């Protein structure tokens, strides 16, 4: 089941046009999505850096002599100073990009550690559903997972999910001392019981079959509002999250979108999990999630 740019944008209500600064390596698919978003009146793009200097016909190009790193730094500063409302980086979305973001954005513009949220429509109920962290933190410990959960809750809120139900996944529903992710999940679950995540409910550890079916969960003695109603899947680590998203996107033919979370300002990227024609969707997601700013 796919969703559209219009639908996501519709969730944000009437929006003012955003000034978007573009960095990274020139990418044809990204460019056509940027132009489409501009033609719809959503964004006003400005490019940054020498690799985008050929875009002069389409938009203003700043810092046309700068290499990619410098251009990214310039772009982030424009964002930080309020000269731009959002940044779109055409890629590559790798550690270098995330390091520059980490180093350049000051504390006030960063809420948390960076994490990535994949978005798809659950086949069972058609609801927008989030998977995290599918790209950035490879072996998150409990401390990181708390921030990953908070980031995802924020993305969920931006998409209209006010009190998300979160499944902290594991290979089984019992705490197993040999499997640290089951301990993390149990801890997050307890924190949520004490309302440390506000109105969001974290349940875990849950195996994917318990998460997907209230009946299967009850069969195992789990009484919770989360099974069968999951808004956010929190994975044990990057391998499990990314591989699961790969299967959904490439073998399950679900359309995936993605949101970079942990910054207070929209930074729009595309990971390899999303198909190249998902740029427009990612633009919509980035703008809508951060619409309050």
């Amino acid at each position, binding site marked *: 089941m796919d969703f559209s740019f219009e639908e996501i944008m519709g969730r944000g209500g009437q929006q003012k046009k955003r000034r978007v600064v573009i960095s990274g390596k020139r990418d044809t698919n990204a460019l056509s999505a940027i132009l489409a978003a501009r033609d719809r009146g959503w964004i006003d793009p400005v490019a940054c850096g020498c690799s985008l200097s050929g875009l002069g016909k389409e938009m203003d190009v700043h810092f046309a002599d700068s290499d990619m790193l410098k251009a990214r730094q310039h772009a982030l500063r424009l964002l930080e100073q309020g000269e731009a409302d959002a940044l779109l980086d055409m890629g590559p*979305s*790798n*550690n270098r990009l*995330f390091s520059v973001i980490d180093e350049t954005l000051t504390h006030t513009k960063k809420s948390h550690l960076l994490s990535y949220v994949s978005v798809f429509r*659950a*086949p069972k109920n058609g609801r927008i559903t989030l998977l995290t962290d599918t*790209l*950035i933190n*490879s072996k998150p410990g409990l401390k990181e997972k708390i921030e990953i959960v908070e980031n995802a809750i924020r993305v969920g809120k931006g998409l209209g999910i006010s009190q998300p139900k979160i499944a902290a*996944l*594991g*290979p*089984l529903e019992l705490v197993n001392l*040999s*499997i640290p*992710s089951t301990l993390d999940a149990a801890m997050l679950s307890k924190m949520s019981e004490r309302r440390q995540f506000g109105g969001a409910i974290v349940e875990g550890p849950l*195996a*994917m*079959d*318990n998460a*997907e*079916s209230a*009946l*299967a969960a009850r*069969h*195992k003695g789990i009484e919770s509002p989360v099974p069968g109603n999951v808004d956010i899947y929190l*994975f*044990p*680590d*990057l*391998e*499990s*999250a*990314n*591989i*699961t998203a*790969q*299967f*959904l*996107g*490439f*073998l*399950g*033919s679900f359309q995936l979108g993605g949101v970079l979370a942990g910054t207070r300002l929209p930074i729009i990227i595309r*990971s*390899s*999990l999303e198909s*190249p024609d998902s740029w427009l969707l990612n633009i919509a997601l980035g703008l809508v999630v951060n619409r309050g700013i």
Partner: protein
Amino acid sequence: MYRNFEEIANRARSLGPKRAVILFPDDTDVMQATIEGMKEGLIEPVLVGEKEHIAAVAHQNGETPGGMEIINQRNPQQAANLCLDMVIRGEASFVVKGNILTTYLYRALIKATRQLAPDQTPCTLCFHQAPSMNKIFIITDPGVNIQPGLTTKKQTLTNAIQVLRSLGCDNPRVMTLAADHIDEKPSIAEDHGARLKRMADKGLLGPCTIAEAMNLPDLFAGHCIEADLLPDIFLVPNIEAGNILVKTTDHLMGGVRQCVTVGAGLITLTPSRSDGYEARMGNLALGLVLAEACKRG
């Protein structure tokens, strides 16, 4: 090679009945599948567990307790060991897990494998049929080994390749799955994947073709791939990724999954405890076909 579970079920009907030993069948779904399996001529069941419980559940499902052989053993570990011993002695073709924690069966199988084939390690093979794929594929190992090292992964792949070959897939296509991550340094999963590919190229894993790509974005790299060219075996980095992935494939992608755990050629059927009657019937059919194939191999 079988393209779907219906082909496996058809083949199973031509092979039955075989003696199957059912471990703790004191659950309605397990018992129903056992009785139906018997009536359809797939299995001649031997039931192992607490005799009174088993008889009561059989009675609830309309079967006279005298109609099936029951071995009384209420200790779960001893019952699991007994089931494996029966298969080793040739008194049954395969074990079916009933209402019991899988750990007991894994322990019994690990012990048996160590005795019969010390260079092997048991692993769970999940057979999948998914709407978008025109063939059955395997994901391994989502069950036995929590954080397998290179040697265990080699043994897992060798095992999976052997099982698929016995089912008629002569040169299985293998993908060693890893996250498509953002670091420049290869991850442990990628490092293992590269080493396994070198081993396979030297013929150390049996006839197979390991894909260069270790993630689906790289495998597809901007184009569609025909089902035949998709991997037959996906090796996952660890139990967490494996377990979540196999359950995603059936629960979110609308597929069908059948799990078996194999070591030293011993077949144990390890359905999820939440699997219903139909899934368990399909599981029996797979058990029959595998028991026959591995015997021939």
